[in-house]
């Protein structure tokens, strides 16, 4: 009780310091008066009595300090005092303060931004209920793209019924394309992106609509009333967040569909399942309609509580192979397998290493910043050594002085952190809206509590790091040396100079490692850009086309032929063609094997399958190496026509001419018409798989859409309206789909690598600048210190050139030591990032040589400025001033 009361009293005493101090002064005065009175009464003279009273009272300051300490919070008082003093002295040294805070802000800002990315992608759980139970399920060998990762609806349902380790299995249709749905009823038909998901998709993830309700079981049955759930951003954009939309019908692809709800803002399908994709609406997959579509569903499951991933995997290893491809066609057989991954791991596991590298790079930046600050603080401390010596002489303890220096560095680094947080916030806000970067979860980037805590942590850690060395250094300076007027403390200066040199060397070494890393990443990226993709993305563009053939293949041929002819007449269009799937976007695969052979699954991997029109291969810029392109007449129902890539040709007919050979595609006959060079169908970095091209107008190969691809010499965007005009003439219902350059597909596929390259390169540049600043600071300071010496040497006949050469040599020496150390460190570090490189050895001589040249050049430049200054020293002035 009384302790509580005392704490309160101390708090109020702390706040009422001036009043209580005055009262205590009065009490002391009264004490002395009372004592004096008594000694006078004992017969002393008043003066003697007063003296005796003062002696008996003891040291006035000790009494005051003891009383204050007992009364309030002395330590806090001291801290406040130090703070006030720090703010005053930093305010006086404005140049230093601004530079220091800016450097810190850059270092801390970069760290906070990267931490937020790491936190979002790696550390923070997915925004679902019990996300640790969620697993992604796909086939073991994803060689044929989505088709070889997905399952048939029959298999999905059978798995769901038979599993004992998973509470739920759900899935989504893996072959949705952007702008695949036409929203009508609002003027021009509008392209929107929809995806169908299993009825239990949202309940499995634990996502509840913010408005309305989830799908019911009835809504997943054949011939049920069509319904849709809206994504939050779409609801806001299209319907101004009007809650009344729930329950109304909207026209989707000409079908009146009831909106049954709106999903929460936190649910971003694309961010988790398909980085970069924006999904506007979700409809229930009518599984009974999809039975015969083959592998269509990407599976997600939820583990039962207490079941481990390993147990579920063990079950899947025995259960999944027993599932039929199609229940109605047991003769089609079985042959699924499954790998289970934690969903979080699946989403961002591949990025773990890149992110850790990024984190390390940015950590190195922080180290360089600390070293730089240490150097700045040392220079400042040297200038203030007399001040500190004076304070020590007056009785300030070493702890008090180091404490004050730490307060100073803490104030600096917290100010830097505040500014850095602002920078990080800007970067994060920008990044969160970069839909073109194919990184998962990017849209949920934000500065959260964890990021704030991290900011505070690194700010405090940095302040200790860069405040401690100067503090200790200063507290141990020689009092008398420092106090002597005009004494420049030569011995002390040399010690400091050495410490500063060591700091600069370590800074250069760190910058070295960063530069080599960035160089290697950059070289890898350039190699990726250099890869022959098998098609020509520049000067080509694509747009999703709608046509109404009423299901008739013959009619489809007429429409498409007419459409392509009309488009090719547009001035500027060289060629045009249509494909259902574009490279580096959606894909599907079908098996192909030579006629007359039995199908062996392991021998004939699924081949990427494209239904195209004549002219497509030329329009996308593929290279036909043998045979001929498809023609409009290649629509034989019994014997299809196919163009295969070189990989298939080599595997199926090694050493033979494949032209004219018969193959089986999904069981049907097809004759090989031509061979094309391999296309990097997934990304530039991935080796091409098996690819085949069939006619979009052949009845046996159902296309899954139509993308018109045009090749032009003009900037593609300039043709957008003319092309749209033609499409509208042919089909007035053609939605205003995006006319996108093929290059954007390639860029999207390489965007994660570009993202990391840009960041690492930015950090390396920052590191280089900071190192340059460090070199400049040290050399410049040493020139100032040695002004007199240089003056004497010049008076004795040293030429300007000699003085300059001397100082530049000194700079180079520092740089070279740093580079040697940094190169050795780089050799170790780069081995760790070897897996992230593409076509680039971790010891790539170009990266190392580039780094050495760059660092030497920067060191020279940083040394040259003070060297020039030194060579212009007027010996007369230098000698007179001292």
């Amino acid at each position, binding site marked *: 009780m*009384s*302790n509580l*009361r*005392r704490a309160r*009293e*101390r708090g109020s*005493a702390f706040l009422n310091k001036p009043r209580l101090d005055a*009262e*205590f002064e*009065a*009490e*002391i005065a*009264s*004490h002395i*008066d*009372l*004592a004096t*009175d*008594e000694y006078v009464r004992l017969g002393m003279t008043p003066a003697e009595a007063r003296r005796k009273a003062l002696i*008996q*009272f*003891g*040291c*006035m300051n*000790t*009494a005051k300090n*003891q*009383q204050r*300490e*007992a*009364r309030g919070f002395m330590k806090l008082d001291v801290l406040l005092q130090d703070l006030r003093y720090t703010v005053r002295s930093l305010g006086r040294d404005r140049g230093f303060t601004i530079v220091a805070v800016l450097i810190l802000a850059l270092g801390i800002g970069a760290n906070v931004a990267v931490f937020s990315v790491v936190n979002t992608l790696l550390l923070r759980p997915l925004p679902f209920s019990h996300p640790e139970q969620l697993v992604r399920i796909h086939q073991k060998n994803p060689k044929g793209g989505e088709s070889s990762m997905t399952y048939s609806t029959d298999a999905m349902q059978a798995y769901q019924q038979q599993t004992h380790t998973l509470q739920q299995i759900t899935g989504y249709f893996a072959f949705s394309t952007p702008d695949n749905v036409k929203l009508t009823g609002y003027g021009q038909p509008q392209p929107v992106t929809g995806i169908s998901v299993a009825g239990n998709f949202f309940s499995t993830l634990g996502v509840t609509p913010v408005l309305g309700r989830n799908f019911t079981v009835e809504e997943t049955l054949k011939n049920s009333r069509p319904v849709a759930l809206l994504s939050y951003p779409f609801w806001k954009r299209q319907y101004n967040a009007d809650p009344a939309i729930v329950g109304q019908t909207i026209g989707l692809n000409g079908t009146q569909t009831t909106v049954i709800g709106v999903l929460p803002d936190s649910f971003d399908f694309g961010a988790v399942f398909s980085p970069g994709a924006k999904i506007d609406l979700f409809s229930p997959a009518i599984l009974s309609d999809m039975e015969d579509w083959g592998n269509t569903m990407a599976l997600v499951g939820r583990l039962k509580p207490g079941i481990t991933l390993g147990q579920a995997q063990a079950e899947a290893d025995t259960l999944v192979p027993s599932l039929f491809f199609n229940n109605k066609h047991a003769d089609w057989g079985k042959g699924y397998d499954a790998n289970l991954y934690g969903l979080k791991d699946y989403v961002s596991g591949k990025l773990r290493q890149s992110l850790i590298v990024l984190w390390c790079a940015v950590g190195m930046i922080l180290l360089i910043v600390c070293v730089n600050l240490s150097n700045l603080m040392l220079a400042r401390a040297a200038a203030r050594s007399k001040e500190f010596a004076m304070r020590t002489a007056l009785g300030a303890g070493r702890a008090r002085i180091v404490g004050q220096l730490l307060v100073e560095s803490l104030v600096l680094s917290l100010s830097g952190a505040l500014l850095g947080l602002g920078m990080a916030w800007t970067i994060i806000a920008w990044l969160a809206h970069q839909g073109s970067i194919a990184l998962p979860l990017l849209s949920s980037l934000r500065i959260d509590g964890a990021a704030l805590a991290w900011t505070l942590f690194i700010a405090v850690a940095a302040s200790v790091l860069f405040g401690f060395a100067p503090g200790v250094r200063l507290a141990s300076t020689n009092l008398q040396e420092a106090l002597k007027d005009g004494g420049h403390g030569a011995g002390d200066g040399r010690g400091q100079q050495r410490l500063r040199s060591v700091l600069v060397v370590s800074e250069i070494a760190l910058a070295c490692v960063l530069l080599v890393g960035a160089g290697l990443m950059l070289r890898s990226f350039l190699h990726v850009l250099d890869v022959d993709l098998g098609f020509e993305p520049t000067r080509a563009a694509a747009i999703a086309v709608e046509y109404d053939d009423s299901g008739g293949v013959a009619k489809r041929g007429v429409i498409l032929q007419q459409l392509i002819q009309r488009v090719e007449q547009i001035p500027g269009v060289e060629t045009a063609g249509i494909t259902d799937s574009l490279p580096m976007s959606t894909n599907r695969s079908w098996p192909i094997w030579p006629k007359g052979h039995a199908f062996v699954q392991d021998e004939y991997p699924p081949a990427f399958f494209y239904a195209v029109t004549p002219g497509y291969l030329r329009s996308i810029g593929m290279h036909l190496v043998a045979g001929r392109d498809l023609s409009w007449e290649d629509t034989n129902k019994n014997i299809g026509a196919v163009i295969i890539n070189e990989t298939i040709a080599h595997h199926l007919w090694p050493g033979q001419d494949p032209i004219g050979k018969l193959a089986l595609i999904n069981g049907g006959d097809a004759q090989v018409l031509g061979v094309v060079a391999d296309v990097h169908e997934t990304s530039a970095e991935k080796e091409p798989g098996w690819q085949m091209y069939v006619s979009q107008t052949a009845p046996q190969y159902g296309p899954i859409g139509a993308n018109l691809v045009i090749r032009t010499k003009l900037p593609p965007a300039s043709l957008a309206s003319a092309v749209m005009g033609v499409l509208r003439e042919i089909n007035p219902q053609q939605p205003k789909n995006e006319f996108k350059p093929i290059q954007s597909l390639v860029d999207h596929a390489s965007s994660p690598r570009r993202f990391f390259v840009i960041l690492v390169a930015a950090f390396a540049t920052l590191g280089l600048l900071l190192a340059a600043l460090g070199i400049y600071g040290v050399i410049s300071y040493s020139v100032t210190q040695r002004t007199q010496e240089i003056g004497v040497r010049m008076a004795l006949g040293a030429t300007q050139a000699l003085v300059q050469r001397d100082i530049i040599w000194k700079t180079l020496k520092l740089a070279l030591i740093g580079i040697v150390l940094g190169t050795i460190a780089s050799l170790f570090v780069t081995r760790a990032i070897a897996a992230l490189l593409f076509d680039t050895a971790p010891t790539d001589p170009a990266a190392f040589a580039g780094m050495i040249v760059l660092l030497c050049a920067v060191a020279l430049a940083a040394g040259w400025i003070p060297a020039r200054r030194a060579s212009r020293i007027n010996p007369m002035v230098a000698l007179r001033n001292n």
Partner: protein
Amino acid sequence: MPSEKLDLLQGTLDVMVLKTLAAMGPMHGYGIARRIEQVSGNEVLLNQGTIYASLVRVEQHGWIASSWGTSENNRKAKFYAITEAGRRQLANETAYWERLADVMDKVMAMRRGPGEGEPA
């Protein structure tokens, strides 16, 4: 008399202040200091100024209360008086000190017991 003053245990001076005020009635800081000097034979206080840290601490606990008044020879002075809570605290402290003194007496009176020898 030893030249060094007694090292006081934490809080001992506080008890002395309480006891003094309980025995003598309200007093000013100087009076309390003098009284403790007299009673202790000058063995306790390093100097009189030390008393004030103790006074402010005890007052913050609510065991004494202070007010400005006038001394018998017409000097303005701050007078301290013990409160009810202070008397209770003093009673607790007194009991504690008696127990401690008792134990210390016994320990100090200890002699080598029968059967115990010096270690070899």
